Every structure is written in C-alpha cells, then in structure tokens.
C-alpha cells in the first residue's frame, strides 16, 4: 500500500479542519432558527388557547385574543392568491411553453428577478400610489392584497415554471404529433402532470404572503377594528401588522400576549412552509415517469 507521506498527512489534516469549520458555520446559521422558535414557544405558548384564537383583543389590546387579525390575514391571503395565481401560472406557462429565446424573454426574466428583489417598502409605495390613490380602491383589503399579489408573483412564477419544466418534453412531442394544439397539450398533459408542483409553489406563496407587513401597512391593514371585514373594500386587522403594532406602538401589552401573537404568526408561516416542503419531498417519490 501507499505510505502516508508528511505532505499527505498535512493535506488531510487541512481537509479535516476545513470540514469542521464549515460545519460550525452552518450550525451558526441554523441554530438561531431553532432558538428563536424555541423561545417563542416557551414564552408565547402559555398564551395560546382556543379563546386566544377566537376572541378579539380587549382593554387596549392588553387582554383577549387575535381573532379579527387572524380572519383579516385569511382575507388578505385569499384575495392575493385569487389575483396572483392565475397571472403567475399564465406567466410561467408563457415562459415554459411558448417563449422563444429572445430579448423579450430575457426582459421578462429580468423583471421577475427584480420584482422579487425590490424592497417590500417600495412595493408598499407602489400599492399606495397605484391601488389606493390611482385606482381609488382606498385603504382596503383589495389594495393590500393586490400589493401583496404583485410582490409574491415571482414565487408563483418560479415554482410553476419549475413544475412545468419537469414534465418531459417527449410527452409534448407525442401530443403535438397527434395533432393536439399547444393549448390542448398544456391542458391535457402538461398541467395535470405539474399541478402538484404548482400547488407546492402556491402554498409557499401563502406562507410568504401571510407574514408580510410593510406592503399592507398603508394599503389596507389597520391597528384595531371591532368588525370583521365584510367585503374587499373594508380595512382589516392582520396578524403581521398586529404584531408590529402591539410590539412597538401600544404600551402595556403583557409579554405573554405579544409572544403569543408572534407564535401564532410564525406557526401559520412555518406550517404552510412545512406543508410545501413535505409535499415536495412526497412528490419526488411519486413520479409517474
């Protein structure tokens, strides 16, 4: 066998050190997540009860629960999805199934990257300028949800495009050769075989949308309102804004309640995220081809 020379041994030691250092770096990144979640559960856990979830705040938010904020977040997310999913799926279909490799396509891709990269507060300004004032929706669920929809559009587009491109090209070719139009091919073969991947992206979008604060602060979210929203033109409370408000603007809110609100919010977000991840892992083992 080969002898381990001094040089050899040294380079193996360097490798060992490198591996240990990088491992520590990774740990330094992921441990805070666990610590944060742990602390939120530890401090906010005792606040969580059915009553907390299903009653409105009382006594200047120092007592009671989060019901109106929870309902408001659901409204915002649903309306945002209704707006962004059709547009996002259409955009992904265009990019995956139609777009030639030309300047326009490159421009679209660049626009998607930028849409994802523009600061959320700039999206908020856009929402105020466009939806609240220009289209005269006022500060309403509609204006806030459309702002969220524009902001999270890249999530849907990117996930959908990935799901569409995972469908083997041979299926499309077979369909086209049978005389199916592009649309028939998409509807009968491409979409049915990518729908679960698209769903994964949509769930991820739910996760993103429900946690956003800046885009809704000036477009539709309000600090306190007793009534639940009845239409998209109403203002609403929202979990994320509620957390911001009681943490910074309202004094005398017991720690247990603020931590409880944070825990519910992060619970929604991580639950959705976990469903999305789980779904993806499950799908990987379920391919029909």
């Amino acid at each position, binding site marked *: 066998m080969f002898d381990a020379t001094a040089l050899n041994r040294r380079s193996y030691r360097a490798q060992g050190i490198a591996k240990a250092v990088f491992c520590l770096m990774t740990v330094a990144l992921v441990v805070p997540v666990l610590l944060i979640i742990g602390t939120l559960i530890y401090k906010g856990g005792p606040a969580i009860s059915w009553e907390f979830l299903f009653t409105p705040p009382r006594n200047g938010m120092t007592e009671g629960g989060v019901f109106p904020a929870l309902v408001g977040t659901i409204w915002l997310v649903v309306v945002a999805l209704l707006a962004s999913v059709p547009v996002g799926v259409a955009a992904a279909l265009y990019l995956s199934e139609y777009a030639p490799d030309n300047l326009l396509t490159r421009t679209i891709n660049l626009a998607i990257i930028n849409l994802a990269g523009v600061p959320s507060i700039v999206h908020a300004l856009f929402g105020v300028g466009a939806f609240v004032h220009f289209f005269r929706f006022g500060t309403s669920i509609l204006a806030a949800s459309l702002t969220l929809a524009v902001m999270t559009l890249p999530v849907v587009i990117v996930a959908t495009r990935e799901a569409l491109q995972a469908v083997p090209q*041979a299926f499309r070719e077979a369909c086209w*050769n*049978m005389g199916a139009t592009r649309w028939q091919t998409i509807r009968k073969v491409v979409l049915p075989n990518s729908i679960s991947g698209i769903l994964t992206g949509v769930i991820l979008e739910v996760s993103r949308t429900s946690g956003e604060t800046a885009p809704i602060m000036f477009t539709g979210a309000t600090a306190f309102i007793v009534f639940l929203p009845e239409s998209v033109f109403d203002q609403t409370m929202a979990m994320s804004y509620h957390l911001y408000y009681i943490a910074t603007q309202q004094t005398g809110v017991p720690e247990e309640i603020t931590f409880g609100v944070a825990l519910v919010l992060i619970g929604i977000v991580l639950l959705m995220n976990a469903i999305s991840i789980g779904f993806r892992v499950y799908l990987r083992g379920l391919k029909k081809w």
Partner: protein
Amino acid sequence: MVDATSGAAPLNGDPGPRYDEAPIIEVRDLTISYGRTPALRDITLDIYRHEIFGIIGPANSGKTTFLRALNRMDEFNPGMDVDGTIRINGKDINDWRNVYALRSRIGVVFPLPVGLPLTVYENVAFSPRLRGIRKKAQLDEVVERCLTRAALWDEVKDRLDSLGSLLSGGQQQRLTIARALSQEPELLFLDEFSIAVDPVTTMRIEDVLKELRSELTIVLVTNLVQQARRLADRTAFFLTGELVEIGATEDLFERKVEDERTTGYIEGRFG
C-alpha cells in the same frame, strides 16, 4: 439467409402501391438547416399511396429531420429552418390553415415508446377525445379496434386502467402504434421503431405493418437494412443529409444501384 424477395408480399385483397395515381407526398428541393449547419440538402422524392416507403442510412443522415418536416414539427423547434416544397394530397403543407388537422392525419411512432402518463385506455382514447368523441361506447370501440390491430389487445384487455408506462417495452411500442392508429391517419410514420424492442415483438409489429398497408401509406425510417428489405416497397438511402439513392427495394438489394456508397452501406461496410 433472409427471404430473397423484398417488400411486403401482397396480402389478400391488397392491390399494393398505387404508382399510377398521383403521389400522396411530393417533396421538392427540400433543404433543412439548424442554424448554419445543413441537416438535409435538396431532397426531391415522391411517396405513393399504399406503399411502405423505407428510408435507410446511418445516424445523423437527416432521416428524423425529414419526418419532422413532413408534419411541420419545425414549428416546435426554434432554429430549424425548412426550405423547399412539401405537398401532401397535392396541397402544400404550409397552405394548411389548421396545421393541427394536418398533423392529426399523420400518425407518428418514435424510436423509444412515449406512453403518455395516462392509462392504457386513455392513451388510445386521447386522440379520439381531441376530435370531440365523448360517448363511452364509441371510445370503447375505437380503443378495442386499435389495440387489436396493433396486436396488443389480448395482452392488455384486462389492464386497460393501469398506467401505460407499466407495460413492457415491446408492449409500450405497440401501444404507441395503437395510439397512432386511433388518429385514423392517412399516413403512418415510424422512426426506428424497433430500437428498444425485442426481435419477436419486432416481427409481430412488422406483420401488423404489412396488414396496414392496404389502408394507409407508411414511411418507415429504419437503421436496420434488412428491415427495409423485408417491408419496404421502395427505399431511399440518405447519407449525411443527401438523398444518395432511391428505387425499388429489390433493385437496391440486387445492387442495381447508381451510387457505389449504397452498396457499401447495404453490405455493412460502413454505417
């Protein structure tokens, strides 16, 4: 040795190719290039009704490209440049207002079987459904007829609802033939269909093709010289994008050829 007589022997009631009628496919000065690289140069040939037209040649000689041009699949290949004229039934294919109707008249079978991710039944019912056939009884009838004609019915009639991709390779290839037949095509293109199929199944499919000749016209691209000899009425030899030789299959194998390269390829000296 292989049977010396070339081409499919006429079966009962099969009058054979109609060389006296106008050709079903007329190709004139067809040149195809991908970007700057020409894949096919100046092809001119006719294909007649009810013949099995063989195309032989080594890899990369433009055989598949030729088939793709005939049903305007270049639309889906950015960068594929088609120049020249192709007429089917006397009509320039570029004059079709509804190119999908053109493609639906042409069944295509690929080298590797492409079962759509659907059940056996749905694979065959796919094309009829596209044409708007909805009635279950009618679909049942089409599925059974096409599977029977592709010599697959007996093997799959009890598992019509299982995924097509669960069948064996040979069965899948017959499934794609059944699917092509469900289009009720005038033309059937086969592109090296036996590449992933065992010899016994290959023979069964060849028998199916011989029977089909009485109803439609078959263009058979093959890398197996002897397969062309067994099936084709006439055969063309493509080499690096050029049509080197075209003629009755018999003549090619009897060395009544104009170009030495044809004999060289047929006898396996290159390719």
